[in-house]
């Protein structure tokens, strides 16, 4: 018999009120503003935007505040919000070659055109806690130096000049870029859909997979050809006017991972590439994405598929942390009826088991007595 039960409304309402209180915390402290989160916890906001797959710093900061700094909760909230908005269109593809560069480094060429620009990096810091940040000490203005405006050549173009690297990714002529927000995924995927999924994928999950390729589970012999961070224009075609206009700029991080490739019957020995492109300043994520992108191209290069990082269906089906948290966390919601059914089943099985073992024991005693 199934009996529907209701209850807990008051408990839920009070729990949410308690959540609001704990979120605000000690009232003698000033409340944190959205502007402060954008300005001072910017990389948290960037991660939320990237994995929610929605670029909006203000809303990202709001989500971080609402979620009390729980990143996956914030991503969930922002992802849910995007479903309430209509889509106006698709942008022209962003041009990362014309990026307003804030950081650009290459591990393959020391003296590349444009140079190595460290930008606001954590690299080469000693990772020692800085007690000066315990208080509000004044911060010096950044040093300035004359900048040259020459375009920053992409590292892949340097190698392409020698014909030693594969070209940028091309799909069949009539291919229309897939959109996983519109159609259910069908494996195997084309690289465009894979990149969309990876770009919104969980940073920790992709980092672990990328790390696994370095430790020998699908070796990719990677070098960072280039990481660049900066702003690109987002252009939208205006149908009423027959031309595209920029809607403003967004910050992205791009990683070109260069990988050794021995060559095959079809392809000469050359470098291959993994690609990473992520909203905001998210260098670790862009690097992990590019390593996983390359590992997932194993079949394209006739490589043996032996490791988790090469398993497209496994990776793409589990990289979305909103889906993952939804399914894992739903386990704590009431399952009273399911569990009653299982409890009943286990009780019956146990009764049968006990009856059988008693019968066997009685049989054994009788045999011994005889």
């Amino acid at each position: 018999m199934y009996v529907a039960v209701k209850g807990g409304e008051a408990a839920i309402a009070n729990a949410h009120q308690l959540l609001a209180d704990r979120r605000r915390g000690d009232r003698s402290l000033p409340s944190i503003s959205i502007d402060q989160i954008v300005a001072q916890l910017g990389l948290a906001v960037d991660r939320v935007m990237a994995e929610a797959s929605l670029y909006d710093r203000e809303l990202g900061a709001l989500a971080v505040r609402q979620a009390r700094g729980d990143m996956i909760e914030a991503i969930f909230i922002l992802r849910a919000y995007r479903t309430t908005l209509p889509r106006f269109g698709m942008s022209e593809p962003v041009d990362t070659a014309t990026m307003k560069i804030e950081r650009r480094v290459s591990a393959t060429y020391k003296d590349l055109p444009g140079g190595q620009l460290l930008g606001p990096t954590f690299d080469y810091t000693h990772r020692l806690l800085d007690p000066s940040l315990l208080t509000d000490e004044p911060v010096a203005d950044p040093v300035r130096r004359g900048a040259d405006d020459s375009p920053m050549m992409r590292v892949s173009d340097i190698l392409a000049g020698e014909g030693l690297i594969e070209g940028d990714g091309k799909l069949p002529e009539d291919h229309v870029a897939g959109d996983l927000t519109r159609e259910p995924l069908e494996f195997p995927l084309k690289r465009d859909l894979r990149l969309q999924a990876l770009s919104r994928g969980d940073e920790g999950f992709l980092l672990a997979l990328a790390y696994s390729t370095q430790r020998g589970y699908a070796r990719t012999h990677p070098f960072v050809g280039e990481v660049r961070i900066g702003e690109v224009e987002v252009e939208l075609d205006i149908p009423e006017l027959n031309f595209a206009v920029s809607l403003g700029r967004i910050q992205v991080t791009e990683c070109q991972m260069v990988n050794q490739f021995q060559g095959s019957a079809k392809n000469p020995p050359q470098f291959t590439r993994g690609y990473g492109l992520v909203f905001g300043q998210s260098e670790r994520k862009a690097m992990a994405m590019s390593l996983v992108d390359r590992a997932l191209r194993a079949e394209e290069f006739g490589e043996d598929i032996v490791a988790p990082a090469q398993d497209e269906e496994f990776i793409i089906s589990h990289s979305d942390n909103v889906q993952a948290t939804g399914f894992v966390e739903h386990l704590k919601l009431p399952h009273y009826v399911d569990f009653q059914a299982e409890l009943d089943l286990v009780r019956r099985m146990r009764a049968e088991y006990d009856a059988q073992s008693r019968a066997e024991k009685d049989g054994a005693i009788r045999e011994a007595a005889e």
Partner: protein
Amino acid sequence: MGGTAVNERKRAMELLAKASVAELTAGWQAIEPKPEVHAVRGPESGLVMVRGRIGGAGDAFNLGEATVSRATVRLGSGEIGHGQLLGNDREKARLAAVFDALHQRAEHRPAVDSLIDAVESRIEAEDRKQAEQTAATRVDFFTMVRGDN
């Protein structure tokens, strides 16, 4: 529209998209006499799917969405203006549309031009500052000279 007209309008629309709400509001205060403005569409907020290119310059893929606000207005004199910009600020989109329409009227054009020129100078100054700060983090390599022993 001819090539120059297209380029001029495109430039105006792009700078209006990058203007701050304070710049647009101040610009509107400077417009005299105030024209009659009718809403045609919006202002409304929605999404644009931002696309990237595989490998940086290959075929397109869908990177993720961005919030966009847009508006279309018609002046009493008939000009249609469009405003579209990143973010959730619908009032900003509406003002951008009004200025796009005003830009098409000779008597308002100087006021709109002075607004967008100011926006352009501000953005250039900000870009210059950032480029110079970034340039200061450029690595200057030097070779260690090995001793004879």
